[in-house]
């Protein structure tokens, strides 16, 4: 019977890592149950970190699993006349303190940059020979239960009277540093696009900024990931990533419908329209 238990416990890491690999390779029945396709530059780093942590975990998982399986196999009371009487082993304990400590410190430092880039160092633009933080391109206004996307009007600035706003559809250019300013009209929401590996909670009374650079055109969904009430699951937005030229065309078309017709100077992608904060 101890063989049965030994195998059962050893199956945990075996099936665990096995199914992980199946999911990562998209094998049935786990096809699609893995990181979705990535469309952002920072997403590559995040995926890399995720895989790295998975591999480290898998090694520890299998290692400890082998020990549990072996111990149950070998040290059953029917095979073992008497337990070995020992209660510590200084060298061994040092090893299993120091090696994990090194791994953890490595992990801690290894991913600091990725965090800094995705959340701390905002893209800059040159203005009068000086690098200044890039102004937001779209104001994302979350509310129960939907999204408003405010694009700059003819004045090229968001949060002004001439803003052009669209419900639940966000159009953005690829290959451009995109900065979004996020605010909420009521409770906490969270802006999440799995394919871009971006997520940011939006807190009442605060302005949040989020930035990323998309790599190829696609359409995807925007989800709210902070509980906001009965319709939380209905807070669905659409994101269309288009080429910068298509983006210009789309903007122009939007503005066509607005009066007065805008100054072509300001009709830029918005990317280089600097405004000191």
């Amino acid at each position, binding site marked *: 019977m101890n063989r049965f*238990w030994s195998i059962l416990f050893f199956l945990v890491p075996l099936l665990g890592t096995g199914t992980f690999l199946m999911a990562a390779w998209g094998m049935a029945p786990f096809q699609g149950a893995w990181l979705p396709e990535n469309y952002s530059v920072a997403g590559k780093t995040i995926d890399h970190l995720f895989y790295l942590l998975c591999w480290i975990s898998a090694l520890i998982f299998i290692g400890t699993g082998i020990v549990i399986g072996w111990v149950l196999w070998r040290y059953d009371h029917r095979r073992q006349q*008497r337990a070995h009487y020992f209660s510590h082993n200084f060298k061994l304990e040092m090893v299993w303190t120091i090696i994990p400590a090194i791994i953890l410190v490595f992990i801690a430092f290894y991913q600091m940059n990725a965090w800094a880039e995705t959340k701390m160092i905002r893209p800059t633009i040159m203005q009068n020979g000086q690098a200044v933080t890039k102004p937001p391109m779209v104001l994302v206004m979350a509310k129960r239960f939907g999204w408003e996307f405010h694009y700059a009007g003819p004045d090229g600035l968001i949060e002004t009277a001439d803003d052009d706003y669209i419900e639940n559809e966000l159009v953005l250019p690829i290959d451009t540093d995109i900065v979004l300013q996020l605010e909420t009209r009521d*409770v906490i929401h969270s802006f999440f696009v799995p394919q871009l590996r971006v997520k940011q909670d939006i807190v009442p009374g605060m302005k949040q900024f989020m930035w990323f650079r998309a790599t190829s055109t696609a359409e995807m969904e925007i989800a709210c990931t902070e509980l*906001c009430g009965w319709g939380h699951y209905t807070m669905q937005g659409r994101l269309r990533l288009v080429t910068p030229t298509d983006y210009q065309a789309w903007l122009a078309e939007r503005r066509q419908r607005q009066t007065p017709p805008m100054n072509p100077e300001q009709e830029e992608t918005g990317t280089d329209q600097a405004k000191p904060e």
Partner: protein
Amino acid sequence: MSDMSTQLETASKGRSGNPILRFLGSYVFSTDHKIIGLQFLFSSLIWFAIGGMLALAIRWQLAFPWSDMPIFGPTLFASEGGQIPGVFYNMLFTMHATIMIFFVIIPILSGAFGNYLIPLMIGAEDMAFPRLNMFSYWFMWPAFACMIGSFFMPGFGPTAGWTSYPTLSLITGDAQNLWILGLIFVGISSMIGSINYMTTILQMRAPGMRMFRMPMTVWALFITAILQAFALPVLTAALFMQLSDRILATGFFAPEAILVNDTTSISGGGEPLLWQHLFWFYSHPAVYIMILPAMGMVSDMLSCFARKPLFGYRPMVYSLTAIAGLGFVVWGHHMFVSGMNRILAISFMVSTMLIALPSGIKVFNWLGTLWGGRLYLTTPMLFSIGFVSMFIIGGLSGIVMAAPPVDIQIHDTYFIVAHFHYVLFGASVLGVMGAIYFWYPKMFGRMMNETMGKIHFVLTFIFLNGTFFPMHFLGARGFPRRYADPYRFEEFQDLLPLNQFITLCAFLMGAAQLIFLVNFFGSLFWGRKAGRNPWNANSLEWSAPSPPPHGNFDFQPYVYRGPYEYSHPGREDDHWPQVESAEAPDSQEIPSPTA
């Protein structure tokens, strides 16, 4: 049942008169730590059943969204045609989590096992403050009333999640007030309990019971009590602030007057993130409150059934202490993307990496305890090994989430759900079940059935993994938690079959608990009689009669050695109870032979 009646007699010895009063005195308003422990045990098990049903209802909705709910649907939601409305789903996960955390795991670990075991394991007659102890149980009842009452409030009940973040929690229905009151009462109960445990452990140990001769169970309960005493006041303050925001419009957590749906308004001047800091300042230590006692009990069971000294007793104690201390400075890992200062996130990441270290050391020490042992794979032993095996998964996924860039993707998805169910169900609940099988003979004087126990274990173990492991994949994909209907999103539609598989496993896991139920109650009557020490264990409680009478010991316990002297080379017997005289050095004091 005769054991119960002897217990009744012994418990009420010295009191006479009206039998009803006597019954009330010995079972209801008892000051005996064992009876109070059993009261906590039974009420937690009842709440466990309720919380489990809520979980199955959640799973039902995720597998068959908006389909008619069986049994409950037609009666509860006749107006909606048997369907559950979205806000009802929010109630389900809010109440499931609240019940499991505050009414099952915390009270069963600290309340039931803490009460039952501490005096017995340190050789005391009772707790330091028996009457206070009784109050600690009776403060649970107003909390029970609040929770049950909140189900019947308009709007189905509390719906803001167990984390109850403002400003949502300021505008949900009045049931939220009852939710807050309920948690305040639970807090008072735990606070009273923790003061009692600390005093008892520090002051009431039997002669010879040095701190470093205490079993890990007692150490863990001691450190848990300290955690509770320091963390609970913060939660209590935060809960009062939220209550006054809701009732008096004080606006501690609301930045500006907010109109929601043009109806509700709350006044401003506050800060929503303040709640999150206060809440997690309590709730991260709380996750350790929910596992340290289980770690302690598992350490004792592993050593007993490996017939071997616990590997690294002192490092185990130190790592418990380190976990408890560091546990106070990691709360920000729940808030990486909350809008909190983004530089601060890095320091929380570093402290979280640090706390993984003592957790890892504990795992290695458990494996070291098994290595070279003479293993008896009894039901409690299987649950204990299951605990270790599942805790490894939960700890590893913890490290994955502790990396803030990765957490961006998986925060508030099913990955988080997978993580905390591995640590809370996989580890804590398996540990608790092992502990019930282990101490049942002490509590009731009879053994539980081993065959049924093993079947219960194997089914629970298989289906728990079937339920929670695939959730990691869902989370990586971005599948959000707390969604009544994720399949409105095109991108999540193909995940329906996997969710149905999870639901199937969850229902089978629920069904497996019926075996436990039958075993538990059946063994009260038909279980094999247990002597004082059915497992040949060392710690003090096994030297007392089963069940122990009022006052616990029928002799004056004197403690000669630590609790882990199994298979001592100088002795034929493979165990050496702490109370047995004849001097011999502690295993901790002999030089280490190389293993």
